[in-house]
């Protein structure tokens, strides 16, 4: 039982095999892609492995504290930021091998020409609980 984050990047990940921008797909290909993602999440729910899935808008703002009594400073978006997260899925699985298997399936979502995108997903383990028995 371990939780993993599957991170999907707008940019920052190595190039996908089927690397055609989404705005150059056909509408049907976009629908097929969305359907694949939904079906994937629904299937993980039936296997009891789904925790969460969210998509993020590409444009965000950087915010920081600016001292006592002052409003926070905002800046960005920065076009040069290397890493841009597009969304995530959180899974709860029995093993690392299972997490890799599922990430592989998600990466096979169809893109241009109805072919798998083969996009790179980042797989990050959550910190687990500290075990009671350590010695």
């Amino acid at each position, binding site marked *: 039982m371990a939780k993993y984050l599957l991170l999907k990047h707008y940019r920052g990940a190595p190039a996908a095999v089927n690397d055609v921008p989404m705005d150059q797909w056909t509408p049907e290909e976009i629908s097929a892609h969305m359907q694949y993602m939904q079906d994937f999440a629904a299937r993980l729910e039936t296997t009891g492995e789904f925790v*969460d899935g969210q998509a993020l808008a590409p444009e965000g703002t950087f915010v920081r504290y600016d001292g006592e009594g002052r409003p926070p400073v905002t800046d960005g978006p920065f076009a040069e930021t290397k890493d841009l997260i597009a969304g995530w899925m959180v899974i709860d699985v029995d093993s690392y091998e299972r997490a890799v298997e599922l990430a592989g399936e998600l990466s096979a979502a169809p893109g241009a020409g109805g072919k798998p995108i083969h996009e790179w997903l980042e797989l990050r383990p959550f910190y687990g609980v500290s075990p009671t028995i350590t*010695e």
Partner: protein
Amino acid sequence: MTTQVNEALLRRLTPSVLGILVRRGADFAAAEDAVQDALVEAVRVWPADPPRDAKGWLVTVAWRKFLDATRSDTARRRREESVDEEPAPGHAPAVDDTLQLYFLCAHPSLTPSSAVALTLRAVGGLTTRQIAQAYLVPEATMAQRISRAKRTVSGVRFDQPGDVATVLRVLYLVFNEGYSGDIDLAAEAIRLTRQLTAAIDHPEVAGLLALMLLHHARRAARTAPDGSLVPLAEQDRRRWDTVAIAEGVGILQAALARDRLGEFQAQAAIAALHADAPTAEETDWVQIVEWYDELTRLTDSPVVRLNRAVAVGEADGPRAGLAALAALDTSLPRHTAVAAYLHERDGDLTTAARLYAEAAQKAPNLAERGHLTRQAARLNSRRPD
């Protein structure tokens, strides 16, 4: 007058009520749903109208729920056929029903997480929502995990004896890897293991119960008020629960006297030696190393060999510990943390600081990461001598 529903009583009765339904011919999955429905009903009805015979009430209501569900279910025919295949009601039970439930819920065809979830619900009487909260997953996901687990074991015959070792692994997991939310999973694991000792006479079941009690006894001393880990050597031993320790030691001694050693008894023996030391300095490390040798013989686990290296470091000095460590695969979890500790004991503080920082990067949980980072910081911020 309304009274609070005795939840502990409800949950204690859960497995035997479920066992009775299955004995009467209900298939396991439907019976389990019916018992859950009856528990919900009890929580609703009992405060105003407590029954004289709690178990009889639950059996009656659960059986009625089962019949209602069977009648209304579109798969009625399929269910009725499966009822026909079951042994006739009143068939003399060959093995205790509660024990059979433990076997079924820990069946080897289940994944560990499924076995844990099913055990907590069918044997422990927890609701799906409580189990979902305890493992930080959505309730819908946990509901699916449980119903899938029930489907997986649906073909397993209820009267076949199972393997107690698989049950013990599941209970160990519940004890060792639970979040501490509303449901205290460690306490629940102890309750379920204690209940198991009443259903089967087996020294390893006793060994696991002793192991849990001995570790649970240290719980209050294990974390500082800020939530950080307090290592065994630095724990305030006055805060250990001496009642739990005495019970654990007593159970362990009775189990060991039967001369059928297993890994849980050996682990409990190590915990008992720690519990027995008035101060960390007085720990009998020589005996602990001997128990690790037994454990290595029993399990041949690399994690045991790693813990043995720590014990050797205490018994025979850090150089001996480092020599024992050198024989082990460096990719083992916590290998770097052990190396850091042994180097510090050996006086090589620069290496130790570097290794603590490296170990923090690989820590499997936040509490350990915090602890290891603080160790590195402590050594890095020392005055140069």
